[in-house]
């Protein structure tokens, strides 16, 4: 199952076009990741061994506005030896439409890094085991 983070948009998330700027989606996903990591690795500061992002792909499906209520759904979609993939979806609900609507899908690949030498290293079995808590395949849930 996915990890859920609720977010209320703020004025600084909006832009002059009247909706939430696409850059805010990335900030919300970052906040959701921080909350997820705090749950999975409480108190861990990711230094000197930490994570770096290698690639992020995002599809923007719907706009969202200041008074929408936002949910970020985060799950591990792949766990490899040296890298793992997180999928994050931003969903909105609103007073006049309580059915959640999906606004974006992001897939991010992270790898473990030793910041002492700035080189990547294997994730390690302990880390991978913890990540499995929120490993999820939405297709399996639907079938």
């Amino acid at each position, binding site marked *: 199952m996915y990890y859920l983070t609720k977010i209320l948009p703020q004025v600084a998330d909006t832009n*002059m*076009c009247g909706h939430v700027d*696409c*850059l805010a989606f*990335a*900030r919300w996903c*970052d906040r959701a990741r921080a909350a997820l990591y705090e749950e999975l690795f409480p108190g861990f*500061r*990711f*230094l000197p061994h*930490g994570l*770096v*992002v*290698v*690639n*992020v*792909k*995002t*599809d*923007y499906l719907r*706009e969202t506005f200041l008074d929408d209520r936002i949910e970020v759904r985060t799950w591990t979609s792949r766990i490899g030896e040296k890298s793992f993939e997180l999928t994050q979806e931003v969903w909105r609900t609103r007073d006049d439409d309580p059915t959640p609507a999906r606004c974006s899908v992001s897939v991010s690949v992270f790898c473990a890094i030793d*910041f002492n030498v*700035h080189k990547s290293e294997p994730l390690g079995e302990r880390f991978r085991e913890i990540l499995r808590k929120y490993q999820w395949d939405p297709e399996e849930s639907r079938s």
Partner: protein
Amino acid sequence: MYYTSSLSPQVADTDMQGHVNFLAYSNWFDRVRIRIYKEFSPDLNFHDHGIVVLHTETTFIKEVYVHHDVEIRTWVSMIGRSSFEVTQELWQQGERCAVGKTIFCAFDFTIHKSEPIRPNFRDALEKYSYDPTA
């Protein structure tokens, strides 16, 4: 042809890992794309007609640090009927650190539908077209 922009990172761009946080790259890419947004509308009026972001992809190659300016190269890598793609490279100290691709589509907000790219904007996009493999 691509255009080049120079930017100075700031301390607020960094995170506790000691490098520039990758969210800052998207910020910078957007900041220098304003030149293309102004080709669409010189006074950045996107009220009825605008360009919406459909898709982004960023690949992170090398960490970026606050100590030195960065150079961003921006060009148009694809022009379709209503959508187009902007590619941007982030360079620091002569090394390519990240590549971002953003796909936009021209949108009519009055009817909530995409629309064809207008001729004068298409001309502007062609001005910034570049093929690094050529």
